[in-house]
């Protein structure tokens, strides 16, 4: 058990005085009960929309890319816009899981599972677009480098489009591994609660998970390393997507800030989508105790941060285009703001740069309706951004004679809408078969973040500057506190923790409670009095001062004149150490608990 000292300045992340079992119940319920009308309705709509999308895709493949409005000048339109948009949305899952894990932001546990699922579905939607755009989709496997009979013909390793293939397939694979490995223990929980066919299926899904200590150790190690790998990976994916543009010499595309700026934009839009989805899921699946207003506020802060980064990047681009003294570059930006697609530029600026600034206000940050509204606005804004970069730039290239305009056909719009259907279909299925909130991970942070531990975890030591030194010598800086490490509490910490518990009363937690009556001299009445004062365990009793105990007795109702607490801590220490035989011997030796 780790050190559970948590500053009172931190927010509670699990509300409602849950026990471990209640957490299991609450989080398994959506996957176990019969779906409600809202779910069924949503599912029907999602599947219908998806079907329309599939129809539009079929239409494209049958009649060819000519059914789209792409032309000689604007050869990337809605397809690549949507591709980049979906890929961007697919960044939040890994960000929440991996980067926030590394930065120890505990609030991630409320939303990471759903965000990871979202990532996978979003990447699926994204991957569709370049595949269809190839035209001859049945030859799509040509993009992989394999020994072939087409002469020694290899894909072009210098092409950013091929880098994309590697980046996205790697990202998809690693996201699935990461997500599924996290799901395995939770599938085991579902397995052990179910019967019949469900048990059979969950047994397959849970890979034979038992919860053995060694397995947990390896599982944690794996999760941490996958997080370590996923962090640069998630950066690389949108970086490489940005290379698709930035390696060219097209004004407005060839700019070095693109890699980090695309990544920030991706995180920004991904968080917006997570918010949109989780605000709904939270309501429908009754997860308010696990996705609290504090989670929402934290996510809104990330939105504000990434929105500002994106803002800095927009302004940098804009400024440097002027600064460069390069007329084509200057024109590209002039055209974005005042050309035929000016509305998309202003839409982008407003939704992405201006609107997140509302989140400086704590009131708006914690307003769920406003957050929902803004998250949708940002999703739209980020779509505009990609449209600005792609279509607006292409529409006005070096040769005015080939300038052109572009608007999508129903087929292109249909495919885009269809991907929403695909996304929501998968997401809705996911909410029925797997816990939307990671059960084991929520239990893991339970002691730190549940509301009933709030008081107890926040300890004040009354430190003073002078002569405040730890128990152990500072010289053993390089020695390995194997005992101290991995959260085995140092004695001093234990003392501080317990003392603070003793100081504060009453603690509502009913889980940790020893039978104090085993101490000679403590009866049911005394136990009650001690419990009321916050002393629940042998450990707490063992570090209490006898004088303090006496004070508790004096202040408690009832006559405790015969109860002398002088030797209770001594006995309790034996109990803590599990020396029951010694305790018995002690009690036999000193009758009535007195020396």
């Amino acid at each position, binding site marked *: 058990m*780790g*050190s559970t*000292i*948590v*500053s*009172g*300045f*931190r927010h509670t992340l699990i509300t409602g005085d849950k026990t471990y079992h209640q957490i299991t119940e609450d989080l398994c319920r959506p996957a176990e009960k019969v779906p409600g009308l809202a779910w069924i309705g949503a599912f029907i709509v999602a599947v219908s929309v998806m079907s329309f999308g599939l129809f539009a895709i079929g239409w494209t493949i049958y009649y060819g890319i000519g059914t789209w409005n792409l032309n000689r000048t604007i050869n990337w339109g809605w397809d690549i816009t949507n591709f980049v948009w979906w890929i961007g949305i697919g960044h939040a899952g890994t960000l929440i899981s991996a980067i926030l894990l*590394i*930065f*120890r*932001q505990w609030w991630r546990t409320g939303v990471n599972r759903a965000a990871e699922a979202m990532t996978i579905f979003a990447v699926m939607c994204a991957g569709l677009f370049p595949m269809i755009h190839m035209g001859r989709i049945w030859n799509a496997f040509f993009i992989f480098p394999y020994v072939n009979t087409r002469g020694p013909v290899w894909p072009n390793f210098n092409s950013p489009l091929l880098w994309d293939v590697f980046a996205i397939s790697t990202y998809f694979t690693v996201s699935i591994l990461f997500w599924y490995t996290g799901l395995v223990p939770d599938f085991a929980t579902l397995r052990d609660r179910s019967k019949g066919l469900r048990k059979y299926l969950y047994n397959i899904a849970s890979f034979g998970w038992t919860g053995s200590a060694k397995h947990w150790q390896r599982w944690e190690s794996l999760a941490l390393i996958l997080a370590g790998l996923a962090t*640069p990976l998630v*950066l690389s994916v949108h*970086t490489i997507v940005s*290379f698709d543009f*930035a*390696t*060219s*010499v097209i004004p407005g595309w*060839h*700019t*070095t*800030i*693109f*890699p*980090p700026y695309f990544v920030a934009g991706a995180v920004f839009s991904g968080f917006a989508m997570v918010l949109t989805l989780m605000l709904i899921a939270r309501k429908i699946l009754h997860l308010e105790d696990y996705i609290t207003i504090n989670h929402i506020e934290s996510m809104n*802060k990330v939105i504000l941060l990434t929105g*500002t*980064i994106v803002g*800095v*990047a927009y302004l*940098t*681009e804009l400024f*440097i285009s002027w*600064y*460069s*003294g*390069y007329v084509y570059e200057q024109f590209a930006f002039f055209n974005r703001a005042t050309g035929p697609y000016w509305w998309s530029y202003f839409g982008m600026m407003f939704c992405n740069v201006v609107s997140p600034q509302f989140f400086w206000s704590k009131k708006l940050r914690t307003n769920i309706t406003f957050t929902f509204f803004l998250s949708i606005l940002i999703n739209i804004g980020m779509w505009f951004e990609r449209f600005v970069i792609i279509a607006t730039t292409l529409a006005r290239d070096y040769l005015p004679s080939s300038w052109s305009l572009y608007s999508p056909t129903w087929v292109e719009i249909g495919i885009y809408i269809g991907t929403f259907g695909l996304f929501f279909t998968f997401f809705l299925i996911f909410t029925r078969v797997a816990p939307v909130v990671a059960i084991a991970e929520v239990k893991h942070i339970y002691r730190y973040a549940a509301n009933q531990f709030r008081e107890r975890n*926040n*300890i*004040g*030591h*009354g*430190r*003073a*500057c*002078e002569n*405040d*030194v*730890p128990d152990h010598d*500072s010289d053993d*800086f*390089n020695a390995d506190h194997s005992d*101290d*490490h*991995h959260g085995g509490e*140092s004695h001093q*910490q234990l003392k*501080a923790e317990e003392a603070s518990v003793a100081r504060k009363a009453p603690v509502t937690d009913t889980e940790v409670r020893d039978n104090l009556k085993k101490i000679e001299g403590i009866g049911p009445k005394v136990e009650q009095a001690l419990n009321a004062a916050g002393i629940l365990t042998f450990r707490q009793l063992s570090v209490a001062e006898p004088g303090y105990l006496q004070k508790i007795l004096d202040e408690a109702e009832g006559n405790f004149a015969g109860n002398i607490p002088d030797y209770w801590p001594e006995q309790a220490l034996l109990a803590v150490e599990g020396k029951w035989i010694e305790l018995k011997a002690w009690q036999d030796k000193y009758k009535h608990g007195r020396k």
Partner: protein
Amino acid sequence: MNKFTIKGKEKTVFMIMMGIGLLSVVLTFMTDSLPGKARFWSNFLHEALFFTGIAAMALFYMSTALVGYGGYMSVFKRVLEAMSLQLKLGIAFFLIIVIGLFMKWHHLYLWADENFVANDKVLTGKSGFLNPVMYTIFTILALGSWYFLASRIRRASVQEDEHGKFGDYTFTKKMQTYGALSLVTIGYFSAVGIWQWLMSLDPHWYSTLFAWYTASSWFVAMLSLLTLIILYLKGQGYMPYFTKEHMHDIGKFIFGISVFWSYLWFSQYMLIWYGNVGEETVYFKVRVDHYPVLFYGNLIMNFVLPFLLLLPNTTKRMRGTMVFIAVLLLIGHWIDIFLMVKPGVLHTVQELSGAHEAVGEHGHEASSFVSGFTLPGFLEIGTFIGFLGLFLYTTFIDLTKACLLPVNDAYIEESIHHHVV
């Protein structure tokens, strides 16, 4: 021991360092035969940028923790506070540069030469931004706002020691607000500042990523200096609560930001290499051809070595290894900034002295060795030691002004019992 006092011996060492610095600066000035004392002034600008950047990034790092509930930092945040206060040195350094700009003491910036700008179409176009007045305005805005916020955070933090109470988070909230403001001002002004101070040394060249790249270089340098200061204090028996756990965390940051720096380096280099637009490639062309040792050394010191050394978990918990890496990276990023400053200044010298006709655009002759530019010489190293001594001296003075342990910090107990999971 949490109350820091400077020993006489330490003062002596700093004085000696500053003496070495002063001697180097004077010697540089006297021996500098380049027009406009270019070696002397570029050394000064180099050090000014390096140490101002370190102070600014200390504020940035501290602010990320204040805003992001980074509790582990409390046991060493006083060191960061003291480092961020050295923005006052930055203000002094840049005051000299700014005055020099108006008084024509130096010719670091090609755009400051009216005659040249008048005959150069590109620079004429940029003159709305690249001129002494704008330079002054943005320098004041950037350094002024940062120093203001750094001192506000420091004030709230010190006040909390005295007036803070358990369970009272007024000061914490105050610091959080200042922290958020710091992030924004650093986010915006560091970009403008870096364009003015550094990117405009190569006035024709531009790269949108440049500001972030430079900032990440500063960040690693700051973390390295932070590590060295903390481990020194630790060695003197101060900061008893700073443990291997905290060092491990700083080690992870050094690793992560080093990789991030490499990522930005690659992004900038690769895109310019790939696009192959003459106006952009010239920047790297000069550096690869004429500064190969520094160019490749930069990558080895700042990416390959820290990556391999910090990859295993154990090395981040070893004091010796961490000291080695911190020294390596401090020098590595000093060289990185050197490589950003010197070629541009040399080019300015050649342009202004009309030498580029003689040296030739193709630059075969330009590859000849120029003391203090092609490689850092003894005088550059001496100047560095002097500035480092000054920075450490003023930092240590600020360290004495408050308890090393922020006793009433909201996260102090968390931080003391911090364990890397």
